[in-house]
């Protein structure tokens, strides 16, 4: 297992390098220019100077190698400096956003907390809702509970979040006035009152996203359970006189979880990626909102760095899912 993990990790390096080049070229050759953000009242010669000051007029491969150096060398040095109080990086140029002229990693650090709180909570709640629904739906297939579960899952899966989000805002914020429509990122939790405020402002976005996540995972759980419930070993277990509880929750569930765990693990990178639309609707201003605003303003360093971080997370969680698979299913051996 260890050699397998090491081999996979080593293999990930060239994969990620190729991914970074592809992303860089795609982002760079995509139409659009940071110049479009400069008002028309700024004369052309001033525009050219602004672009030159950003370094956006340099040849593409020069910018790529500069970015690689910044990402893999300068930024880790800054991280070490930040943690240990050293000054290894000196004044080397960091990856800087064209839009705000601020280091991309400090923007990410500013935004990770709200993204993880909102999207992470929604994912966790989604999983916690989905598992019991999926298990019971499969156990009582075609019962009214199963039908209802299927119905809600279909709604959660097929109705887009920009619709459910706005619908909830109109009912619960505009109509009833229970929840705020803006997420306050500067809120500090110091006492019960501010904790209540935090819960209130998280309620709507978490509901929207949890519904969406639960829909997907409950369907996977249900079908995995159904596959296993008809297996011979289930009949054997029952014949041995085990209680239904043990049969379902120990024998069937454990075997059914293998594909479900993979799905859940592969969904984790999307927590870090944020939820572009939901963040926009509730003004959570996390990573997803940063990505979309960077794309809109052709802020290439920001788009490039964010997408590359997502690529790293996806490669990493694929590996984690594979390893978990081996742990959960003793038949799977990688050596």
């Amino acid at each position: 297992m260890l050699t397998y993990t090491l081999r996979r990790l080593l293999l990930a390096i060239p994969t990620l390098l190729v991914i970074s080049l592809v992303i860089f070229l795609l982002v760079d050759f995509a139409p659009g220019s940071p110049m479009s953000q400069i008002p028309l009242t700024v004369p052309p010669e001033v525009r050219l100077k602004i672009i030159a000051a950003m370094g956006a007029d340099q040849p593409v491969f020069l910018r790529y190698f500069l970015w690689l150096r910044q990402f893999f060398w300068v930024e880790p040095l800054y991280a070490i400096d930040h943690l240990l109080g050293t000054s290894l990086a000196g004044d080397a140029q960091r990856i800087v956003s064209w839009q705000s002229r601020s280091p991309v990693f400090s923007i990410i650090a500013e935004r990770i907390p709200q993204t993880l709180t909102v999207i992470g909570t929604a994912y966790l709640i989604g999983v916690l809702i989905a598992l019991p629904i999926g298990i019971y739906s499969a156990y009582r297939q075609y019962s009214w509970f199963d039908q209802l579960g299927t119905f809600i899952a279909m709604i959660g899966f097929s109705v887009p979040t920009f619709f459910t989000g706005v619908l909830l805002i109109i009912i619960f914020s505009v109509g009833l006035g229970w929840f705020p429509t803006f997420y306050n990122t500067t809120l500090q939790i110091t006492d019960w009152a501010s904790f209540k405020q935090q819960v209130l402002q998280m309620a709507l976005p978490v509901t929207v996203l949890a519904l969406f996540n639960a829909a997907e995972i409950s369907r996977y759980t249900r079908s995995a359970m159904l596959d296993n419930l008809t297996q011979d070993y289930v009949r054997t277990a029952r014949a041995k006189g085990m209680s239904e509880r043990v049969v379902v929750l120990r024998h069937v569930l454990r075997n059914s979880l293998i594909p479900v765990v993979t799905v859940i693990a592969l969904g984790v990178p999307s927590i870090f990626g944020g939820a572009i639309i939901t963040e926009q609707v509730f003004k959570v201003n996390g990573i997803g909102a940063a990505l979309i605003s960077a794309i809109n303003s052709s802020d290439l360093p920001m788009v490039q760095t964010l997408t590359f971080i997502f690529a790293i997370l996806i490669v990493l969680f694929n590996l984690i899912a594979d390893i978990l698979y081996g742990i959960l299913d003793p038949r799977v051996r990688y050596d």
Partner: protein
Amino acid sequence: MKLKTALLGAACAFALAPAAFAERGTDGEVKLTFPQAVSILNPYLSNGTKDVYAASMIIEPLAGFDTSGVVIAKLVTEVPSVANGGISEDLTTITWKLIPGLKWSDGSAFTAGDVVFTYEYCTHPEGGCASLSKFDGIKTVEAVDDATVKVTFTAPKPNPFNAFVGSQSPIIQKAQFAACIGAAAPTCTAQNFGPIGTGPFRVTGFTVDDTVSMDANPEYRDPAKPAFATAMIKGGGDAVGSARAVMETGEFDYAWNTQIAPEVQAGMTAAGKGAFVVAFGTLVERIEINLTDPSADLAEGERSTAKHPHPILSNFDVRKALSMAIDRQTLVDVGYGAGGAATCNMIPAPALFTSDNTGCIAQNMAGAKALLDGAGWKDSDGDGIRDKDGKKLSILYQTTVNPIRQDFQALIKSWWTELGAEVELKAIDPGVFFGGDAGSPDTFQKFYADVEMYANNFDGTDPEVYLAGYTCNKAPSPDNQWQGENINRFCDPAYDAMLVELSATRDDAKRGEIAKKMNDMLTKDSMTIIPLVHRGTLSAHSNALGGVAINAWDSELWNVADWFRVK
């Protein structure tokens, strides 16, 4: 003795009573929301309106503009003029006298050295300063003494109120930005996110593209202001969400740029919690005509250049007919509601420069058809499309991807089709259209289409720079990497001559006359530009917020120091 003390006490109580009504920091927090979040608080590195407006609460220029576009003193004792000796007789110098004893929010003294530094900061060749053109034509900026700044121009300057005037050229503190000059400018993150200023508020927290937190500046020059103790600007979301937070849920006091559909505006106003306010500046949504041939049959480098006049649109009657067929009021009703007005001018304001040209407002379809008939454009082959000399009246009409613009395209297409033209529509991503990439065929400068629609405006109250964009030498072409404002490739020596005359004219009334004539030359006399809608900026404020006076000539938040809580 006792009586005297009591009387003194009573006198003091009376003297203090009015102050109690207007005291700094008594009204709690004012909350603003911008649909586009604030990225940076240094306008010299951004020029995005959101950033300039947010920064205007913190850093201030020497003088600003009031709601009617008149220059008002901010950090100076009076607005310089020839009469008070602030502007020299030959119009080559302007002398600003700073308010004595003025302090930065950190308590240090505000001096002429800071103003000189601001000039050096923005004009540094490697700084990439976005407001560089504000400092055009300046020879020197010098500190005569600590409280006097003298600006010398290279030539007589009829309108010297560019540098240090208006929210785009505020004064930054020398002590704070001294190490941030030139190429180092973008690396000064802490300074760019937390400039020290003289404005009513100072920064206490900044998260990029999200929230600006501020509190009242303890050193603000009016001890009774601002009424609010703290302020915050939350960004993100969309215009509808921002408007809703002010007009329906009451979470925010003020929302900037709530450009939403007219029927949604009406619904939100009905909720009774706030009001929409609109400021009409100089922004005009227009159709620009390509006077050169954009045909793909021409060689690259010759397409859309002055070498090949446009086969159809070179004809004045065709251009005029296209304008006559448009019902501008319908466009306003569909797209902007209270936030727009039909116009025939490319300079819609201020009044001094606005021509009385209103002939295009009423739609005249019959007249347009007659005009084309008279010019020989007839449907000779019965396919419903007019033609002449074997050329069909076929038009490629491009604009950016934007719901209102697509509505406009559809409406105008229906009118032009009725007129007998064949219209093909094209919508381009705004990042590409305005991106100015010389390699892309879809930039508005390259103009590989017959007509294109977008909005343009000019800064401040004087249109000279704006009008200067339409001279022959400003036409984008391969020779200048497709840069230039004269995207129509309009070229009239008489126009160029008038521009020279305008820049040499000092008398305001005379300048107005010339600008109006130039406006007419581009619009009704040549139909090079077909203005459609004079667009305002629509913002929303809560009924609980007092003192809002929306301003199109400066930052919308220009008088934020005067805002108060309605109780």
